[in-house]
């Protein structure tokens, strides 16, 4: 039913409308085998359709973890390198004012810079990630899958904590060389990074999921990381009492103290045990908070 006058269109002009061919031809789509009554009903089951099985917590957590971990291939610079470069920069910068050797200041700088890598990625970047997901509607993808809330929150937090392991190791080794500290206790990173990572990632996830706007999630993440930097890298004994109180409230502090306790010739294992215990408790609480926040954000 369509025709155009001789002369046609001017060059560059859009056609005046879609050609009035039959719709099915226009799409190239197969017209469903609809009858004229409009329905192409399948055989309706007599009762409720059986629910599809939901994945268990661990398989779902594993799938989320694996998927999130794979993002390091695509976004390796922000996820793996930036935090490490920042911490290495701080190590070099403070080397000018802190004497090498196993003094309190040198140990605080090395342990603080190492845990800062964890804070940067697990707290700051994860807060941004969840803030962005929440604002863009990306959480709907998970919320419409039969996946336990804990699997999404914990799987993502675990992946972000894992991103920090190489950077934390590089920072700790570099710092120990630069500040002439014993490296025999650095194996403790295998405990400090996951436990501090759990606490900080849980906190980061909760901030990102609870912040009403993504900019606020970013701001909170940045503030948390700045606090971890200032309160972790400087020796506690030189801080005023109110600041020490704030330092005590930050979960990363206990990771720093546990690590600092093994950067001396005679490691203080009781301090390590206290630090890691607090990290574990804070980590469990933070991850529970993250799970609750996810559930709340996903079903607004």
């Amino acid at each position, binding site marked *: 039913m369509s025709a155009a006058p001789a002369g046609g269109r001017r060059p560059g002009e859009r056609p005046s409308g879609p050609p*009035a061919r039959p719709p099915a031809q226009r799409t190239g789509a197969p017209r*469903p085998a609809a009858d004229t009554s409009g*329905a192409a009903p399948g055989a309706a089951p007599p009762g409720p359709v059986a629910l599809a099985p939901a994945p268990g917590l661990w398989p779902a957590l594993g799938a989320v973890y694996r998927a999130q971990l794979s993002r390091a291939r695509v976004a390796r610079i922000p996820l793996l390198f930036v935090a490490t470069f920042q911490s290495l920069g701080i190590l070099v910068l403070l080397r000018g004012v802190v004497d090498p050797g196993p003094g309190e200041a040198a140990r605080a700088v090395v342990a603080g810079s190492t845990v800062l890598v964890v804070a940067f990625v697990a707290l700051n970047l994860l807060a941004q990630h969840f803030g962005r997901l929440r604002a863009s509607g990306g959480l709907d993808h998970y919320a419409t899958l039969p996946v336990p809330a804990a699997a999404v929150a914990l799987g993502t937090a675990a992946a972000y904590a894992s991103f920090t392991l190489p950077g934390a190791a590089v920072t700790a080794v570099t710092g120990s060389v630069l500040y002439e500290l014993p490296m025999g206790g650095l194996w403790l990173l295998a405990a400090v990074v996951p436990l501090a990572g759990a606490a900080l990632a849980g906190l980061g996830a909760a901030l990102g999921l609870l912040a009403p706007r993504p900019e606020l999630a970013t701001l909170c993440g940045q503030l948390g990381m700045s606090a971890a930097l200032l309160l972790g890298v400087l020796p506690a004994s030189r801080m005023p009492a109110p600041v020490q109180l704030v330092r005590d409230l930050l979960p990363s502090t206990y990771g720093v103290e546990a690590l600092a306790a093994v950067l001396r010739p005679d490691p203080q294992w009781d301090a390590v045990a206290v630090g890691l215990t607090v990290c574990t408790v804070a980590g469990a609480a933070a991850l529970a908070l993250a799970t609750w926040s996810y559930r709340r954000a996903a079903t607004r």
Partner: protein
Amino acid sequence: MPALDVSGLEKTYRGPRRNRSPVRANAGISLRVRHGEIFGLLGPNGAGKTTLVRQLTGLLRPDAGRITLLGHDLCRHPRRAPRLLAYLGQQSTALDELTVSLAVETTGRLRGLGAPAARHERDAVLDELGLGALAGRPLNSLSGGERRLACVAAALTGHRSFLVLDEPTTGMDPVARRAVWSAIDRRRTERGTTVLLVTHNVSEAEAVLDRVAVLDGGRIIACDTPAGLKARVGDEVRLDLVWRDRPPLEVPAVAALRARAGIAGRRWTLRLGPEAARGVVATVTTGPAFAALEDFTLATVSLEDVYLALGGRSPGLVREGGVTG
């Protein structure tokens, strides 16, 4: 028993902080979708489609009303929705940094498939949609249409017998569109899959839907087959005239049409009886009117015309891009 039975669904949002007047997004929506049907929700932005879909998928609790999906009461058990349906939303941010392959496989795993089954389904659906060559690429490195196709692949994994697809073919080329509709039709034929399609693209709606509910202002203003809806506006046809520079108002027949035309720049749109349309075509294809005419199109009414004829208030439906590719 219908696949989906919705009755009296109500949802009102609080207004923005500075203006607390509430927004009634769904105002008593009732509809029934039969098993194996491709059922459309058509309406402009703000008509209440998204709110309705968010309630059906368990993302939002209705203020009042009842939703029964495949025999399950979703108002009482919203967490059952993910075990009954697959949802393709408009956003892909959750999958953006994953490869196509991993995005599909992970979605399958999270829909309850075991690892071998998820891998098998991943390979099958990527092959079905022609995504094999893109399997190793992250979604955020793909074009909009390719990314959308990858999201469709993720939505089709996991054997759900009810699919809720929100603008599934946005940005796709004709080949991809054909692949999507073939895949959906195959599931319908082989497994009796029911599809709820959200669209504001009338061309796509006319082409693929069995029945369509037209939404406006949070209400369903009509629900019928596309042909049935079009029959409601009688036998009118739509005539679009595009003038080269200006309309030849010195031709009396053209000047007389001006008052009846919807005018957008150099385009005039007229809805006329077939006899009158023939007369106008004869007029504008002869003499000075023809010299001034750039292009014209004569078509049967579309669902957009139906929407406006039924009292739809927002001119927000699109014809282009949806189907012609």
